[in-house]
């Protein structure tokens, strides 16, 4: 592993100053479950780490507010997943957290860091002799002619079809969340929907954050849709695996009729993927199994299979349909 220097920040401001002044090789370090893992693989090669994991101002969260839920970026996934109000009133958020990783990793990983988790594409993780535009820009994409079983069917480009692996961001996207970030030039708020990028010609640029901008907190508008919600995650094994397909859904029902639906997809796209067309088509309809399936098909409309992943288009549509029927039971 490439040598690096390590320093622990005492405040958000000091951390931002240090990362900003340190230049390209300087990075924030939170739980480390992604960054340290990728450093062992040589996929990340920072020269200076600024540890923000012990900053007390980032670790809290508040789920009781009348207008919004607020999650400090440093809060641990395990603590937030077990919050009783979240379990009761926003199951989509709790499930997205406890169905991710293992309890060991959820005890380490932060909510802000989880949003920035990098792809599990094996060509990206392993590098040479395989080409990866995300790892070495301009080198090519081994996945396009390789084993693409887990790769994206939505949002890919010629340069990259790596799947965004996270769950939490998908659930947040369905609930119109936003992140407050701060950098050397001040603070701003980014809608979750604008945080992640499709790869296009520059797959190494994964978010709209500047290198020296830090996520301070995640905010979710309080909504009665939270109760009739679920994060449905389909994996190769029942637990502790990344999604082959997942769906975050939330519903506002009037009897049997859908008044409002929120649908976001995970495990299928190069970024957290909102399925607005499916939402629009479902609104005003009775939520029958047939309507749920039609919404699933609408959510996957435009999906493009590679060599080994076509089954995940059908799987994705069924996952959305099942998620809608699960959420309806909670309305």
């Amino acid at each position, binding site marked *: *592993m490439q040598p690096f*220097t390590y320093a622990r920040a*005492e405040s958000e401001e000091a951390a931002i100053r240090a990362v900003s002044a340190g230049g390209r090789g300087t990075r924030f*370090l939170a739980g480390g479950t992604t960054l340290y*893992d990728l450093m062992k693989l040589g996929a990340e090669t920072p020269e*200076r780490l600024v540890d923000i994991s012990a900053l007390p101002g980032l670790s809290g969260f508040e789920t009781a507010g009348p207008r919004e839920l607020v999650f400090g970026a440093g809060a641990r996934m395990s603590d937030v997943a077990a919050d009783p109000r979240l379990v009761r009133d926003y199951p989509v958020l709790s499930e997205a957290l406890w169905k991710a990783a293992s309890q060991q*990793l959820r*005890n*380490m990983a932060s909510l802000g860091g989880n949003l920035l988790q990098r792809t599990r594409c094996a060509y990206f993780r392993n590098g040479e002799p395989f080409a990866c535009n995300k790892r070495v820009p301009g080198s090519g994409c081994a996945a396009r002619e390789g084993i693409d079983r887990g790769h994206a069917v939505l949002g890919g480009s010629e340069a990259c079809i790596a799947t965004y692996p996270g769950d939490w961001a998908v659930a947040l996207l369905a609930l119109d969340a936003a992140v407050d970030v701060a950098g050397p030039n001040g603070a701003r708020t980014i809608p979750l929907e604008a945080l992640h990028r499709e790869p296009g010609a520059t797959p190494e640029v994964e978010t709209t954050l500047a290198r020296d901008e830090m996520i301070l907190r995640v905010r979710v508008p309080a909504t009665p849709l939270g109760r009739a919600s679920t994060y449905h995650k389909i994996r190769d094994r*029942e637990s502790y695996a990344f999604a082959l397909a997942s769906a975050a859904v939330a519903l506002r029902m009037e009897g049997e009729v859908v008044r409002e639906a929120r649908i976001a997809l995970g495990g299928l796209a190069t970024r957290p993927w909102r399925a607005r067309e499916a939402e629009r088509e479902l609104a005003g309809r009775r939520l029958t199994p047939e309507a749920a399936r039609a919404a699933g098909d609408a959510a996957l409309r435009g999906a493009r299979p590679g060599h080994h992943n076509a089954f995940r288009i059908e799987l994705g549509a069924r996952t959305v349909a099942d998620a809608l029927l699960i959420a309806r039971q909670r309305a």
Partner: protein
Amino acid sequence: MDRTPDEPSDTPGAVSRRPLMIGAALAAAPLAPPGIAAPARAQDAGDGRLRVNLTVNGEARQLSLDPRASLLDTLREGLALTGAKKGCDHGQCGACTVHLDGRRVASCLTLAVQADGRAVTTIEGVAREDDELHPMQQAFIDHDALQCGYCTPGQIMAAIALVREGRAGSAEEIREYMSGNLCRCGAYAGILAAIQDAAPKMRGA
């Protein structure tokens, strides 16, 4: 990792430095380059090692560490506590599970310097002082919850934490909250039985 952690820093000649704090006061010094000047100064005297204080199984330990060292390598190579095992070294198998401030973590993905000032419990530290096995250890023996045994220290550390988290309510819940610990011998049935057996004994303990 191409370097292993050093011996405890009471070894003669060891460089001893605590992980440097980047503070607002420090960064506010008018002529200093903000923030990042500090770590550069902290490491220019030696080979970049940092002084780290850990409480391991109740005992205070002081180490001089390469910042790259994982907590797992530090325990195994620096402190000769080889109970926690290196399976995948990427947080995927659970063999390295230890408790950090009472919570289970993957020690292979924990930078040892991030554990500075914190308490670590390993499998070597769970038996009672009179050497009586922890109820979870005894239950693993009673239920044949292992074959080769390589994953067992991690399984037991995860299982003890699971009971304390209140996640031993049903077989389904135990399976879910033990899913971060793989057993390639397939002793899962015995592991489940052992946890169900030990959970009430831990509450009584």
